[in-house]
């Protein structure tokens, strides 16, 4: 990374925190033992994994015995849905998910559909919120699981999961939430929020890549996804990723201890970024809920310009952001999330996501807006859509 890089893509991944690396290092070097070993080399790694299990559990008010370590959020999402609907005694073969879930959920649903499972996709409103009443109306006698993400990765909208979980529970349906973006960012409590299954990932909160967990409420049946040895109480095979798990534990401790101050800092930077962009760059709009959103997330549409061109121009100035444009994904359609909240294709193509971390500074935010103004101006000057808008007046906008 160049020294003057401004990293505003923390929803994609975060840098490993120094304290996390320090906690991991012994398990990458001298303490290389397998925690399943009975000889002395297994002892310290085993204790370290147990400690990490307590740390990641306590952040969501769970019991350590309800945590199953995985390779990350995608595996956890796959596991939760497949176990809920394909396990030995599912309530039925119907699944309810929101239409703005991560692809780890949506593509798992596509796979389940190919196996005869029925899927209901819940709409969202213009702010990206799922209506709990629609969840209730969608539940059928054969519904096995409802899965609604705690917070959206693109637009940051935080869902009313407590209400949705309560409705699922009242109907005897499992409730899963993909908390990959929310875990360590906002307060979650599996009991208060009526959660049966929860996915989380370490690298979104300063931990290492390649490790996550699935929380499974005690009493909920969990069928193995990865068959193998006796790791994770016999239902998730594969030698434990000790350094990864230890790093996840340390990252969870740090996130929990710093959550209030970190959120406050992120919110200050994010609000400054949003207010400067909306007031200084015309034809911009904030996507996602105005208040019920992750503290570090800003998703903004810039009319008349395309997201990949914006992203590349920002990158050439050392600023790393992300986009919902199709052109960045290799398909012709822009982000399913931006379309689901009602944006037209052109507006969705011209959207950028900025996600700040507690390590970003106000100076970086100001520099970002200064560069954006120049870049958006340059791209609009070469945009036929902007030309038409100027010549034809306001009515052609969008």
């Amino acid at each position, binding site marked *: 990374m160049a020294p003057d890089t401004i990293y505003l893509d923390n929803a994609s991944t975060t840098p490993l925190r120094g304290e996390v690396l320090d906690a991991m290092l012994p398990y990458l070097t001298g303490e290389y033992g397998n925690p399943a070993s009975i000889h002395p080399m297994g002892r310290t790694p085993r204790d370290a994994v147990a400690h990490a299990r307590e740390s990641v559990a306590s952040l969501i008010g769970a019991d350590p015995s309800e945590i199953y370590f995985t390779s990350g959020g995608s595996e956890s999402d796959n596991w939760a849905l497949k176990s809920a609907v394909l396990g030995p005694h599912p309530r039925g073969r119907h699944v309810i998910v929101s239409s703005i879930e991560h692809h780890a959920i949506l593509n798992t649903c596509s796979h389940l559909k190919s196996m005869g499972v029925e899927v209901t996709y819940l709409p969202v409103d213009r702010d990206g919120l799922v209506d709990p009443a629609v969840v209730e109306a969608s539940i059928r006698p054969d519904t096995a699981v409802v899965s609604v993400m705690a917070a959206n990765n693109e637009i940051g909208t935080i869902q009313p999961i407590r209400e949705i979980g309560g409705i699922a529970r009242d109907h005897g349906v499992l409730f899963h939430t993909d908390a990959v973006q929310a875990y360590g960012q906002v307060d979650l409590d599996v009991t208060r929020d009526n959660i049966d299954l929860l996915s989380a990932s370490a690298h979104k909160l300063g931990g290492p890549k390649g490790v996550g967990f699935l929380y499974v409420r005690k009493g909920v049946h969990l069928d193995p996804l990865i068959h193998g040895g006796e790791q994770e109480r016999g239902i998730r095979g594969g030698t434990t990723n000790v350094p990864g798990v230890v790093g996840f534990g340390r990252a969870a401790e740090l996130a929990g201890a710093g959550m209030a101050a970190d959120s406050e800092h992120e919110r200050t930077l994010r609000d400054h970024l949003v207010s400067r962009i909306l007031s200084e760059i015309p034809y911009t709009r904030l996507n996602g809920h105005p208040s019920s959103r992750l503290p570090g997330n800003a998703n903004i549409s810039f009319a008349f310009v395309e997201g990949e061109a914006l992203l590349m121009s920002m990158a050439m100035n050392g600023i790393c952001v992300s986009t919902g444009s199709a*052109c*960045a994904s290799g398909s012709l359609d822009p982000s399913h999330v931006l379309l689901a909240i009602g944006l037209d294709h052109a507006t969705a193509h011209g959207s950028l996501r900025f996600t700040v971390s507690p390590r970003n500074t106000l100076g970086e935010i100001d520099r970002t807006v200064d560069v954006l103004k120049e870049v958006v101006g340059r791209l609009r000057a070469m945009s036929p859509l902007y030309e038409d808008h100027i010549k034809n007046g306001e009515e052609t906008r969008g």
Partner: protein
Amino acid sequence: MYDGVYSEKVMDHFTNPRNVGEIEGADGVGTVGNAKCGDIMRIYLDIDHETQVIRDCKFKTFGCGAAVATSSMATEMVKGKTIQEALKVTNKAVMEALDGLPQVKVHCSLLAEEAVHAALWDYAEKNGITIEGLRRPKKDVHDEEE
């Protein structure tokens, strides 16, 4: 994200696009693509009626880095050429001149070729002439892909 995905020439034409802008009272204007797919290109031509030489060519593009770069390169390649020579500037030639494009961006080069053809078609219609070898451009080059 696109580090190393685009060639140096693509990056050069994206960063410093040639011939951006409009031509007042252009002899031919062509706009192709649609916002749904994320690319719209407009080409302006200034044509010498006697010699059939494209004296000037400018563009405006809404689209990704590859869309901007292919527009820029296409304008460079047809400028100063006769209409017949310009018709030989294919999307393949534009891509080759840019040292290639990623597979998912090949449609951008088709759009650039189509935009030049649309502008020539407009010129022919305005002047009531027929340009040999020029077919009516598709309204949207993505029609065939969807």
